[in-house]
């Protein structure tokens, strides 16, 4: 191991050391200072990532500190930071104590960072499993609520199957191409126009496993139940961080295949089509806001897959752009819900009647995120959807793009229904909602600012994304 290797693995080391520190801190001052330590650590890792230029691949370690990895480490660190800010007071209100919570959030981030920096399939798998593992714990962490435990169990059982699928898929890929190096393996999967049959089978398993991680139809069944049962800040993290990580994995694999991506065209088309149609139609019928957002996130993942399957550079750029925007949107939406949740759990869409007047900040953020998710300008959601459909048209995916636009129009109904309930109707016999605390205000304002800023001035981010795609 040389010093360059240590530099390359520094983000991992910072977060791993931080996890141990938070756990040890718990032994001396149980259940205190966990959040603030976590926030400082994540800031440190984000700052370190910003300050360090990209490094060449460290072949000895199987990790690479590429511009791509830098971008995603930054995204994951900030997502986890917002999550910690959101969950600090929520956990106090819901009686979730202990340093295990911040430590597990940090561990999920660790898994995501491993995934973003991985240069071989083994590390990719371990990163993916590490973060899913953390989410098994986080989903079930509210021991006062049977729903949370149930959601944890459902997620664990289906997640175990998907882990097996991914592991088997990677094993078959290895059997087919004889290397775990991502770039080399992906190149030789479809070298010279003909596919290695075993590797083809491997990709099938891998794709199904990854479809579970990002909840694409038909591997989406866990999503509504888990979103409904898990603590809301956890859902905010799960629906953004783990989805972004899933797409980071796909973005590490697919562009390396070059023109070989055409072999995955049909399966990706099916995943995208079913997710867009089923997600949006099912969301129309939901009465529970968290379930509605679960189906909406399935649909959003369908849009991302649509941009991904074009296989062109603009498509990959649109995926990264939309992942960033989607992260901001869902963090605001679930952040607002979690900050409104006090003694009462506000879950039904009807519960939010008139909240826009009684809680202007949270109501406003929720409304803004609904506008963004619906893709209404001048929010960032519009820019993201525009980039996706433009890429799809450029990649000659006209039928899918048209279906996507139609389903996006349908989705406007259920998003705006929430806004209408928030503002158009007076509150009658409303449930008592919670006032935002300082840390929640910071988090909500930050994500809202991102939504608005990217909506009116996306230029710098677009240039950055263009520069990280080799």
């Amino acid at each position: 191991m040389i010093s360059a290797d240590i530099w390359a693995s520094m983000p991992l080391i910072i977060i791993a050391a931080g996890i141990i520190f938070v756990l040890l801190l718990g032994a001396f001052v149980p259940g205190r200072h966990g959040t603030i330590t976590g926030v400082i650590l994540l800031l440190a890792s984000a700052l370190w990532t910003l300050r360090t230029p990209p490094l060449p691949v460290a072949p000895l370690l199987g990790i690479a500190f590429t511009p791509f990895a830098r971008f995603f480490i930054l995204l994951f660190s900030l997502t986890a930071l917002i999550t910690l800010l959101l969950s600090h007071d929520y956990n106090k209100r819901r009686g979730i104590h202990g340093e295990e919570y911040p430590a597990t959030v940090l561990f999920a981030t660790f898994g995501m960072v491993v995934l973003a920096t991985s240069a071989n399939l083994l590390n990719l798998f371990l990163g993916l499993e590490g973060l899913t593992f953390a989410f098994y714990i986080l989903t079930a962490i509210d021991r006062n609520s049977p729903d949370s435990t149930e959601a944890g169990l459902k997620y664990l059982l289906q997640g175990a199957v998907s882990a097996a699928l991914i592991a088997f898929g990677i094993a078959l890929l290895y059997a087919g191409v004889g290397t775990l190096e991502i770039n080399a393996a992906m190149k030789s999967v479809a070298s010279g126009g003909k596919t290695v049959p075993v590797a083809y089978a491997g990709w099938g398993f891998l794709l199904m496993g990854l479809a579970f991680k990002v909840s694409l139809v038909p591997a989406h069944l866990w999503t509504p139940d888990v979103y409904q049962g898990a603590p809301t800040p956890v859902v905010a993290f799960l629906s953004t961080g783990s989805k972004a990580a899933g797409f980071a994995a796909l973005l590490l694999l697919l562009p390396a295949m070059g023109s070989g991506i055409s072999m995955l065209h049909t399966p990706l088309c099916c995943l995208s089509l079913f997710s867009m149609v089923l997600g949006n139609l099912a969301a129309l019928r939901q009465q529970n806001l968290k379930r509605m957002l679960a189906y909406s996130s399935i649909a959003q993942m369908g849009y991302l897959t649509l941009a991904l399957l074009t296989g062109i550079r603009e498509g990959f750029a649109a995926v990264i752009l939309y992942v960033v925007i989607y992260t901001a949107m869902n963090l605001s939406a679930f952040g607002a819900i979690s900050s409104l949740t006090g003694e009462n759990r506000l879950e039904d869409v009807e519960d939010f009647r008139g909240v826009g007047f009684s809680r202007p900040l949270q109501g406003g953020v929720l409304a803004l995120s609904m506008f963004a998710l619906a893709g209404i300008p001048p929010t960032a959601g519009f820019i993201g959807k525009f980039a996706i459909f433009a890429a799809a048209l450029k990649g000659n995916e006209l039928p899918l793009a048209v279906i996507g636009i139609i389903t996006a129009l349908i989705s406007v109904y259920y998003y705006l229904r929430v806004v209408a309930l928030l503002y158009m109707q007076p509150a009658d016999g409303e449930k008592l909602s919670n006032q935002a605390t300082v840390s929640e205000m910071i988090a909500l304002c930050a994500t809202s600012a991102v939504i608005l800023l990217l909506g009116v001035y996306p230029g710098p981010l677009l240039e950055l994304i263009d520069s990280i795609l080799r």
Partner: protein
Amino acid sequence: MEQVVFYILAAVVLIATLFSITEKHAVHAIIYLATSFFALAVIFYLLNAPLVAVFEVIIYAGAIMVLFLFVIMMLELGHPEKILLPGVRDWAPALLLGVVTLAAFILLVLHHPPPALPANPVKIRDFATVLFRKYGVAVEIVSMQLLFALVGALYLGRRK
């Protein structure tokens, strides 16, 4: 002959695994799973990977399965009302599969001249070098994951 033995063992693995997921009694299922691991170990031996074969037996069939059995017996997840000696019908398939595996193994060791060693067989030292050099980061990541398995189990299992 090697091919024939391989197919027999592969059939044993598949049948034993199938039984282990269809079997209702948890302890029986684990016995079938252990049987399947043993057959898999012999397949690895057949593939000139004695080290992996030994790991398969020690770690999977040995440590993990015994841990499973221990936990199940501790939690009494098996049917306590049926604590009778298992009947012939219960243990016959497992015994049959086990005997086939054992027979294959003995056949391989005795009849087959020790499989022609490759020019440079993989020694434990090579294995360790690859594991801790090339995949050293992976080992560290797995150890973090195990730590969190512990943290999660402790947190979720703690009494309120």
